């Protein structure tokens, strides 16, 4: 018994974003929450319910189990902002001097390890196929080559010059 939900497609699913929905599943159960996203591969629905004291609970309903999705209300601006920030990594801002210093640290370490690095304004072009963006942490690597991406990320992680720069999660 397959519902039409699986067949809708990304252009339809994206219309449900940032709305409070009621999802009915085949076993006559209902799940409510703010719809954060729909996985285009499995049609799974990600619902968020915010707690009273901050924090949130996330419920994911598998696409194959979805019978019906009903929209209850639109998110107001505050809720929409909370939703878009829900899974994003914490942002930290550095001063221009600090960014310059970090760029030089990354470049020195890569060059020490015989990896070609070119200056590209704010970014570093690494081995011709990878871009290292500010603030030059391992997760700021961008490349379409998975193998190079993995190697450069691991290399950056082992830089002995790395200072305390990860945000503390409370």
């Amino acid at each position, binding site marked *: 018994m397959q519902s039409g939900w*699986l067949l809708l*497609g*990304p*252009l339809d*699913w*994206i219309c449900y974003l940032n709305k409070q929905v009621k999802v009915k*599943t*085949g*076993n006559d*159960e209902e*799940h409510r929450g703010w719809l*954060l*996203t*729909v*996985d*285009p*591969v*499995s*049609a*799974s629905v*990600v619902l*968020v319910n915010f707690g009273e004291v901050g*924090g*949130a*609970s*996330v*419920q*994911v*309903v*598998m696409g*194959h*189990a979805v019978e019906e999705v009903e929209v209850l209300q639109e998110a107001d601006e505050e809720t929409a902002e909370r939703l878009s920030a*829900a*899974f*994003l990594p914490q942002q930290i801002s550095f001063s221009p001097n600090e960014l310059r210093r970090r760029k030089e640290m990354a470049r020195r370490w890569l060059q020490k390890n015989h990896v070609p690095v070119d200056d590209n304004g704010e970014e570093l072009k690494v081995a011709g196929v990878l871009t290292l963006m500010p603030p030059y942490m391992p997760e700021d690597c961008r490349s379409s080559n998975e193998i190079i991406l993995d190697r450069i990320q691991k290399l950056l992680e082992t830089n002995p010059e790395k200072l305390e720069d990860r945000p503390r999660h409370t």
Partner: protein
Amino acid sequence: MATPVSVLRLPKGPEPNGSRGFDPTSPRFIALCRTSISTLVASEEDAEQLQREQCARSALRESFLRCLLSMANKKVQFHMYEKVKVEATFGACDIDVLNFQVSDLHTPIGVQKEALIRCQDVISYTFHL
């Protein structure tokens, strides 16, 4: 109940890559090895529509991947068919969302140290941010 149980090895079912003798048109194969839902737009006239669909697809998928990332190493409750509810520590998910890799799966017969949960058996799962 925290009695560890020995590893249960169930027979391997069909996999999307290679058939191992399973008929790719059988309902079981299709149910267990459904690959990514293909694009709906086929004709060239809808090139602009295809582009919009791909934009939507990648935005939705990125959000979902971040959701999976935030689940890593957290306790997740799986609500499955036949009124089965289990709790485990989430490890990873495969690319087609067919299996979840979990640790410390609390089942009615004891704790499985490592397990693969078949996504087709799961109705929903919950965790706290």
